[in-house]
């Protein structure tokens, strides 16, 4: 009986002591503050490397002032006055474009650092990025950094990797808030390394505002281009690559690879040794699970890149060496309103069978003729379509009013559609 009293007495004492401690300093809250400190410190470390493009964002990646941003942010001008955090209005630097990659939506610039060592975010490894990993974005959404070029920090997780979507080949998807103005800004890991450049918000409704689905161009793609074009500094456009003459089947291979359907004679694919029926299972060290992933992997390399493609055949696996051909890209120029007009947006990602349509604009020749988004145009006026650049040249060779037969692939079925081209006008 007595002992029981003592035990309960001790327990009561322990409880009181516990609550007294809690009133002083709650160890759980102290622990939470330690976790918080980790985030605050990495943000502080990277914060000053933010580069303000006015309506868009960028990041400094070397102490001598190399800046990465999106092509859709910097592509419209060769010379820039950029701002970095510091002082009431930020610090200004003049900069020029070294090269632009409209297909991959990346531009590399060099700021005139005047001998000053600039704060920068080192390049990370986007192949090591895991789904669920915590990340943060820096940028100027809704021009929030307009006053002092202090970036907006938003925090979230990596939602997915290797997204082949919206013209991006191998995007990192994040749920950290990304809004208009975040474009070109960095996505950074908890070690303070650049893993991607935020460039797109996927939306269902026509308001470009955060949906929780942001897409970033992976840093390894940027590294491939920086390496290949390290001597380019005249602001020219650089090109992606593709394998001419290699036509893939869109049929599902149950996640095991991408099937080669046909190989054109004497083409790059033929010379590299591709055979119809080959199952492509790997490109360099990347596993290929279907034909979209194959195109996505090719999309992270520039023209001229030498790749090892592993194919599976009856006689076993074989590694083929192939040097990528130039994938034509289209740079927006002043458009003549009198030229022939089809009325679609082509996907910038290479497609084995021709060129895929990303969007059909309403009240255009394409829409009137029944062309649909996701159709793949294989032939234009009897000619086999190579890529987006090629079909644009074919359209440009026609006159408004011309009737043209186009062949499209729609859900695996071939269709022939007649389109009457119109004047572009101010569309």
């Amino acid at each position, binding site marked *: 009986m007595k*002992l029981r009293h003592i035990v309960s007495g001790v327990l009561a004492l322990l409880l009181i002591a516990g609550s007294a401690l809690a009133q002083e300093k709650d160890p759980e*809250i102290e622990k939470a503050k330690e976790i918080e400190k980790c985030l605050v410190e990495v943000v502080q470390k990277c914060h000053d490397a933010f580069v303000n493009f006015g309506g868009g964002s960028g990041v400094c990646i070397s102490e001598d002032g190399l800046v990465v941003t999106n092509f859709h942010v910097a592509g419209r001008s060769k010379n820039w*006055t950029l701002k970095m955090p510091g002082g009431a209005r930020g610090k200004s630097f003049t900069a020029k474009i070294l090269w632009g990659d409209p297909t991959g939506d990346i531009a590399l610039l060099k700021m005139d650092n005047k001998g000053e060592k600039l704060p920068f975010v080192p390049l990370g490894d986007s192949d090591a990025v895991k789904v669920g990993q915590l990340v943060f974005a820096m940028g100027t*959404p809704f*021009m929030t950094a307009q*006053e002092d070029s202090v*970036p*907006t920090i938003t925090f979230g997780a990596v939602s997915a990797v290797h997204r082949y979507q919206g013209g991006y080949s191998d995007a990192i998807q994040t749920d950290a808030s990304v809004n*208009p103005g975040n474009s070109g800004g960095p996505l950074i890991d908890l070690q303070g390394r650049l893993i991607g450049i935020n460039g797109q918000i996927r939306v269902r409704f026509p308001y470009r505002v955060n949906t929780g689905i942001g897409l970033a161009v992976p840093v390894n793609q940027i590294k491939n281009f920086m390496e290949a074009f390290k001597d380019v500094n005249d602001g020219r456009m650089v090109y992606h690559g593709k394998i001419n003459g290699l036509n893939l089947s869109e049929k599902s291979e149950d996640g095991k690879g991408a099937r080669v359907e046909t190989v054109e004679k004497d083409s790059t694919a033929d010379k590299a040794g591709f055979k119809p029926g080959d199952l492509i299972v790997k490109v360099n060290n990347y596993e290929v699970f279907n034909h979209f992933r194959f195109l996505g992997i090719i999309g992270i390399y520039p023209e001229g890149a030498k790749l090892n493609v592993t194919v599976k055949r009856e006689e076993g696996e074989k590694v083929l060496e192939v040097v990528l051909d130039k994938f034509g890209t289209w740079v927006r120029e002043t458009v003549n309103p009198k030229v022939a007009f089809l009325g679609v947006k082509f996907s910038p990602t290479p497609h084995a069978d021709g060129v895929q349509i990303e969007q059909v604009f309403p009240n255009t020749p394409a829409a009137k003729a029944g062309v649909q988004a996701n159709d793949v145009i294989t032939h234009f006026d009897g000619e086999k379509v190579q890529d987006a650049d090629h079909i644009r040249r074919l359209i440009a060779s026609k006159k408004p009013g011309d009737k043209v037969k186009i062949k499209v692939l729609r859900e695996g079925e071939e269709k022939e559609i007649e389109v009457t081209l119109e004047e572009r006008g101010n569309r």
Partner: protein
Amino acid sequence: MRTRLLFAFLVSACVLIAFQVNAQEENPLAVLERAFQKAASKIAPSVVSVEVERDISKPEETEGKEERPVIGREVGPSPGKYYSRPESPASGVIITSDGNILTTYFNVKGENVQKITVTLSEGKRFPAKIVAWDENVDIALLKIEAKDLPAAKLADSSKLQQGKFVIAVGRAEDRVSLTVNTGIVSATNRLEGKAIQIDASLNYGNAGGALADIEGNLVGIACHISTRSQTGQNSGVGFATPSNKIAEIMPDLMLGKVIKRIKKPFIGVQGSEGAQDVKGAEVASVMPNTPAAEAGMQDKDVITEFNGKKIENWDQLRDGIKECNVGQTVKLKVKRGEEEIELQLKLGEYPY
């Protein structure tokens, strides 16, 4: 008897051991999770529901036309309407134990307000009257006749840093349930020091509610959702009036002093900044219903002269606008394609 004693001893020993194991192998995320819960429970009793009844037959005339948040209407261009005020109640924060309550001025402004009702955390309802407000930081002070209320503890907002955790705490539409959204500080000094920026979701009902730190102390009053979505949906770019600003204006508000808006000149264009190939201030977009729109300015116009001064970049244009007064008419020159056009523009008032 002995077995019972032994049993009691064993149970207490197990409890003690379990406590220790728990303390050693605690998942840090679980610690964080409980810290958020504790912070929310600490601030929760101070967060109230604010319900405003309006005479809808009368328009809200204070701003001349549409209802809109008082500050930070939108940092970027707005394609359509300002966000409109839904019918559901918003939030407020008890600031003194004798019934002083803060909310955003946006929640309670307008000449058609008929009745304001505050519902405390346990559901008790009080009529409230407006004591005063500050239009510059979007804060209004309400008073209810009550005593011994749980006032929020103000934190020092100058100690905030980018990346620190915050919770936005509000009252749901039922006026009693708590809503807690977690996030981080995106920036500490926005809208010329009038706002903290956060990435925690803020929706209409959060307006006037608490922004607390991980210790459950008040770092700000949630005041604005920046969004281009006409539905008023959250974008992850939200603002709150910092606690130090609140501490600064409280004495005046308690005396019933209304702090009027400091008028700043405004033309209503968004800049396309930085491109050096452009000489002048290039307009990315002209906001609708603004002086620039009324003057016939168009997207992509390049402003080369403003009020008699040559303009080479955006900083010069901003300085030029600052030197003018609201209501003043100025001449400006713009380049539109190859053409040079002269326009006349009557400066309006900056929306925040």
